[in-house]
Each structure stands twice: as C-alpha cells, then as structure tokens.
C-alpha cells in the first residue's frame, strides 16, 4: 500500500532513529526505504541534493531533509502527542539542548570514534565533559530530559545510548560509567525501556561489527 509518508533511512544512523521514533510516538503510518549507502538511490539524490544524506522524509511528495528540521516539521503537521513543550520559553530551552546535542555532542562523538591511538584519550575526556554538562544542566534531577515523560530532547540525546556504547566498545574506552555519571546512566536505561523506543533500537552486536569495520576501513 502506498502511504503518504515515506522515510529514506539507514539501519545504523541515529538521525534516522530520531525520525522513526517521532513518527511512531505519534502513531503516523509510513513506508520505510532502506538506502544502500554506498549506492544511494536516484530518489535520495533528487530529494536531498544539498547533503545527499539520510534521513529524508517525504510527505505528499515533498521532501524534507536534516533531522532536526524533519522533527520540527512532524511536530507542526501532527501536533498530537507533542514532543516539544507548549510554553515558548520551555521550547527555547528544549531547542537549545537539541542544538547542543546535534552540534557539540555529535562532533565530539565523531572525534571520539575516529581518533587514533594518540588522540583517543583526549577525545574521550572531551566527550566526558559534554556528558557532564548534559547530566548537570540539561537533565538535572528529572527522570527524562522532557520531565516525567520523553520528548524531542530525549530522542536527540539517544546519541548517549547505542551510539556512544558502540563507540566505547569499538574504541576501547568507557566514558558513560555509572560511578562518574549516575543520573545520565540511569536515564540511558530508562530511555531504552520506554515503549516504542524499546521495540525500535538497532541490534548492538550488528552495530559493533558494522562500526568496527568502518573504523578500520574508512572510505
């Protein structure tokens, strides 16, 4: 059946999961198209000529790229089960942390992943600093970044779940330890247990295998 909403994605991409979770949390039906990343489809290249990347959401034939932009779009078109607070100030706080995660956390995680033997300890420390800021200033004493229930900020900070865990294994340094980051560590477990999230997580063994291969063969 041809659905009005389509998502072009890749099974290991955190940015794709952000969109999958948003769609599922809102109960939006969609067709999923798995892209073979070295051989991107014609459609993907046409829909996202600027970045040529997943995820791309296509709604009634119109493509939207860049995951934070896609999330805001989903929130506006399907406002039920809201993923952002109503109050403009609270929304600005949510957007601040979303930017922090998509900008700083993401690049630190990439550095942590790609650094060779010489640089990886420093990259791990930098990663830890960002984790600390996230725990103290974004999460605080709340159960979730969104308060009592998950919201868009939790989805974005999922970088701190499978993706950081995979990187820790592949690189061989742990950063998100319960002794050093107790509240964030608890959040990781609570987040992964949430309905919908729990049923839509990448397989950890497959992730380690995939990312180990990428790290030794970057191309």
């Amino acid at each position, binding site marked *: 059946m041809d659905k009005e909403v389509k998502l072009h994605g890749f099974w290991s991409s955190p940015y794709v999961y952000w969109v999958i979770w948003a769609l599922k949390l809102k109960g939006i039906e969609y067709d999923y198209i798995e892209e073979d990343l070295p051989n991107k489809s014609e459609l993907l290249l046409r829909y996202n*000529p*600027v970045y040529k990347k997943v995820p791309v959401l296509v*709604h009634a034939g*119109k493509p*939207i*790229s*860049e995951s*934070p*932009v*896609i999330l*805001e*779009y989903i929130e*506006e*078109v399907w406002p039920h089960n809201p993923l952002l607070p109503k109050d*403009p*100030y609270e*929304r*600005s706080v949510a*957007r*601040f942390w979303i*930017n*922090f995660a998509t900008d700083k956390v993401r690049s630190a995680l990439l550095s942590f992943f790609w650094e060779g033997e010489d640089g990886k300890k420093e990259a791990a420390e930098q990663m830890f600093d960002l984790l600390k*800021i996230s725990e103290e*200033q974004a999460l605080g004493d709340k159960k979730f970044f969104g308060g009592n229930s998950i919201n868009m900020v939790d989805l974005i900070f999922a970088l701190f779940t499978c993706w950081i865990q995979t990187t820790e294994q592949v690189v061989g340094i742990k950063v998100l330890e319960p002794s050093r980051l107790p509240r964030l560590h608890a959040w990781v477990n609570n987040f992964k247990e949430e309905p919908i999230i729990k049923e839509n997580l990448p397989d950890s063994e497959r992730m380690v295998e995939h990312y180990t291969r990428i790290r030794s063969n970057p191309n």
Partner: protein
Amino acid sequence: MAGEGVKLLGYWASPFALRVRSALKLKGIEYEYQEEDLGNKSPLLLQGNPVYKKVPVLLHNGKSISESLVILEYIDEVWKHNPLLPEDPYERARSRFWAKFVDEKCVPALVGVITKVGEELEKSAREAREHLKTLESGLDGKRCFGGTKIGFADVAIAWIAYWVRMEQEAFKIQLIDQQNMPLLAAWIDYVLEDPVMKEFMPPYDKLVKHTRDLREKLTAVVSN
C-alpha cells in the same frame, strides 16, 4: 527593569547578534541593548549563557535565551505579529533548512578565510564559493528566501551579504561572482538596501579593520 523588559546582550561585529537585532526591529519590539566587551564578559552574559558564554543572549521576563536561531524562533512565538516564519509547515522546514545550512557550511568556510593561510586559505575560499553557489539554489528563483518579502531565513542569512563583500575587499579574494551566482548577487544587493537589514550592520571600514587585525593575530602563530 524587571518583568516585561526585553534586553539583548550583543557585540557590534557578531553576525549572530545582528540576526536578533534585525528580528526585534522587524517586529517593532522595544528593548535595551547591552554591548559586551568580549574580553571582559558581564555577569549577565556569564549567567545568561553558562554553557557557551557567548552573545547573543536575549533576556525576557527574567529568563535568558541563547543561540541566535533559537532566539529567532522564540521571538516569533512570543510576538506573533509580522511573522518571520511562513505559515505553511513545508515552507517553514525550507526556511529552517537554509538557515542551518548557512551555519553548518558557510560559517566554517568564511571563518577559514580569516584564519587560514596558503593552501588552506585557498581551500576555504573554494569551499565558501561552493557553499554560496548551493545557497543560491535555496532562493528557488525568488527575490528572497522568504519569497517576496524578507523572512526568517533572510534574517538568518543576511549577514552573509555583508561579510562576503567585506572579506573580498579585506583579503582580495573572490567569493561571489556576478556571472556565476547572479541570483545570490541580486539578493545581496536587495538585502543590503533594505532599511531594517542594514540598520544594524557594523560600520564597514571598522569591520574590515577588525577582521584584518583578527587575521593578523590568528595567522601570526602559523607564520612563525
């Protein structure tokens, strides 16, 4: 003044502060402006933006909002008249997409032009030209990113018009090419003539000198 007061912490040469000043002006919002001495940041700034300690910071009703694009969204939501973002969700997505593209791609390349030398400088200039060409496609043949009139994306991107001209003159390199990017060149002219957009652009000669000095300071390390 507590309560309703709006205050903006900014810096004269910051393109990000410029965005917020233009947005507040477009909406006719009265506010107090505080120029920050970046070498000696005020307690208000350090408390208002503890994570980055950067301008711009908007203070409203005793609360602080940081990150220029986040501030623009906040302004648009609190003061709903003269909307910056279009109504249609798809068009809103396009506006946000191009604003982010500028921050992710154009900013690092344009900063590279200031901070790098030799081959690295050539590379940054080349990247800047490529990204500007891509940016042109965002106009989609229209006069501005917002369509017929200035909107969210134009406010977010307008500073490029000024900075590109300034870097071309300051460093004698070509970034915008009338022939190669006619639509973007036309948009630059349009934006630079708009009374609201040009009101807060820093004094041109002062900015050229400031940028040249910055470059000397940053590349002195490299040359030695």
